[in-house]
């Protein structure tokens, strides 16, 4: 190996190599996860309460991240916003990947006509611009959290399907799948026991990437005022409502943006630096 082994002693003990970048990224992701879970207990002020006489107030001892365009506490609003951003994105990515990957594996195993129909249908889906599609849906049925989750997952199903199908087609040509077929195994067993364990690594990496896309799309929708509706606000909505403070360099517009950036970049770095198992046959 030409690359210097930058593994931590902690990981090596369990037979894994963990890079420091991955560890930092994981810490940031875990931090936001914890914030989303425990936000109601952490917030110093109620999110709707006007606590500052000034608007776009500066960072102070009382208001850690300043105040927003109505004089509300930005810190509390970001903590609560994490719930919507992380929660909605997580739900959407889970639905998108479970549906996409399952359909992809079924298509790869079955082949023939079902594969063609499924592939062409989802190709047609993915040819619709994602922002436009979500705009139309939200305009038609109105914005609510379930609608957002379903719209976001529908948008990302074709991508997950394509990815999983491409991986599963490669595994499907292997002899061990053939052995299982001539053993008389059912479709469900082939997918669960033969294909899935061999594609789960790339699929998880893809899931992380798709989560990032969904966070960005959700924030974009909220920024346009079509996402999470007031009085609730996710990070995109926070940027949107405080955009007027940009001219003053107000912390109220900078920190929600930093929150979005830190979450997406960390997830990206984490999936690029997942722990790798140390395979060493001869080692004691």
């Amino acid at each position, binding site marked *: 190996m030409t690359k210097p082994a930058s593994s931590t002693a902690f990981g090596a003990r369990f037979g894994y190599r963990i890079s420091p970048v991955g560890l930092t990224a994981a810490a940031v992701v875990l931090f936001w996860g914890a914030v989303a879970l425990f936000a109601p207990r952490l917030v110093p002020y109620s999110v709707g309460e006007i606590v500052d006489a000034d608007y776009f107030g500066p960072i102070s001892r009382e208001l850690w991240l300043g105040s927003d365009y109505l004089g509300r506490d930005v810190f509390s609003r970001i903590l609560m916003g994490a719930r919507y951003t992380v929660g909605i994105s997580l739900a959407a990515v889970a639905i998108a990947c479970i549906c996409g990957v399952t359909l992809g594996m079924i298509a790869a195993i079955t082949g023939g006509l079902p594969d063609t129909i499924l592939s062409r249908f989802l190709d047609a889906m993915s040819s619709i611009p994602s922002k436009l599609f979500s705009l139309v849906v939200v305009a038609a049925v109105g914005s609510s959290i379930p609608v957002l989750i379903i719209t976001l997952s529908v948008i990302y199903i074709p991508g997950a399907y394509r990815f999983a199908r491409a991986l599963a087609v490669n595994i499907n040509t292997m002899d*061990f799948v053939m052995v299982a077929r001539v053993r*008389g*195994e059912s479709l469900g067993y082939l997918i669960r026991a033969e294909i899935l364990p061999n594609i789960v690594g790339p699929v998880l990496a893809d899931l992380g990437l798709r989560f990032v896309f969904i966070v960005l799309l959700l924030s974009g929708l909220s920024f346009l005022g079509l996402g999470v509706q007031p009085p609730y606000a996710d990070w995109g909505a926070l940027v949107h409502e405080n955009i007027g403070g940009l001219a003053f360099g107000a912390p109220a517009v900078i920190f929600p943006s930093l929150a979005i950036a830190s979450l997406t970049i960390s997830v990206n770095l984490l999936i690029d630096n997942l722990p790798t198992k140390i395979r060493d046959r*001869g*080692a004691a």
Partner: protein
Amino acid sequence: MRESLVQIRDLKVEATTDSGRKVEIIRGVSLDIAVGEIVALIGESGSGKTTIAMTLLGYARSGCTISGGAVWVDGADIVAMSETEKAAVRGAKIAYVPQSAAAAFNPAIRIMDQVIEVVRIHQLMPPAEARAKAVALFRALSLPDPETIGDRYPHQVSGGQLQRLAAAMALIGDPKVLIFDEPTTALDVTTQVEVLRAFKAVIGAQRIAGIYVSHDLAVVAQIADRIVVLKGGEVQEEGTTADILNHAQHPYTRQLLAAFAPSPHVVAPVMETPGLKPMLEVHELTVGYGPLQQDGRPLIVAVQSVSLKVAQGRNLGIIGESGCGKSTLARAIAGILSPHAGGIVFNGHELGRNARKRTRDQLRELQIVFQHADTALNPAKSVEDILDRPLAFYHGMSRKARSTRIDQLLDMVRLPRALRQRRPAELSGGQKQRVNFARALAADPKLIVCDEITSALDAVVATAVIDLLKELQRELGLSYIFISHDLSVVEAICDEIVVMYGGRKVEEITPATLAAPQHPYTQLLVSSVPKLDPTWLDTLRQDPEQVRAYCQR
């Protein structure tokens, strides 16, 4: 004593494992190659033979480093050179003929441009001169149409031709040393003969020194002056070809030689009960690929009206060159491919056209074992899980019964029980093939179709696997259909042999009558199997008419 062109002194190569541990894979090897001498490196896979050969180019695989010793080639130490200096030597002074020419050629560039690329890089001669020289080399390597073959793309020539073109590519820069890395391993025996002849003629004419890496002692006997036997990165034995073949000292060398004389197969007594039907009867089977044509036949017919019979407790061998349809036939019997016409009767019942139309019991009694254990075992599962599934699926055993049975199966295939928790990637090639076989045994089959199961193994390991199969047959009363391109393997285990050519069955023989086959293709096949006798290739006389008729060389 002739002067040495290549001197390898106390060579050490180190590999760094995943956890950063250093492992010495070549442990102080020294050897000499004189001008015009071919030295063969022989040993099982993992013995370091290719690694040593590659150090002549100053190259070590990624993850490996040359950690000690010197490799003097024509008065210069390659190990001490800088990358730029090495680049100047590679191709010009030392050249390499790869194992798989098909993988070594770029499919998008014409052959001629690839052959003369070395000359262009080192600016040895003008392109027109290089082309003329390449054509001369093509002629010397007895390639067909030497004037125009260079204008083709790699997929437009046969495997044997491509291997010779790879040799032409290596020879064009007039190297002093050639490295042959198992250049005929991937070829059919009938093609191998011609390629070996061509190599030998060119080497003799140009007095080229070389290293010939192989695991096939009989091939090496034809071409090498001296043989070096390796095991575990160390030289076990060294001597002239005649010495090694006749007076081998080292136990490993003797094992290698013994692998060439497999224990003769005791032919099972023929049960001449007229009323008893054979266990498997294949009747006029036609199998093909691609969409059906207007005449109702598939686009490519791979197997054409083949009939065969296998009796209980007896073994049938199917032999033929690659592309003759033997694997397709096996897949049709196992129910992977649907035959286009004909039928298969197993135990008195007509089998469904494919696996879906067969009952679970029919599938259980007829198992197939694939050639590549690497791809036939799910890399994400442990040995235990792999063997567990057929037990649960076919026999519905309880967890405890399955666990006991897994231990029994591992004992049967002579694998230590401690391997249960291992993943396939953590096993050797021979061990993987045993697990692969144990999985078929787990079904309690009556007939096992073995598709080239020893082809990817070393001679010594393959012999051990064959012996195991024979033993299991005695204990369990199994029958095998044994598919191979290796005549000696089939001879060692089969009662009847079917010879296939071009999708048709050309002859049915028994090992006893193998010496005097009737069909010309069988005659050619039998005569092409290399023998340990170093004079075999030089004295081999094959009817050129037959060769033309049956080899697309």
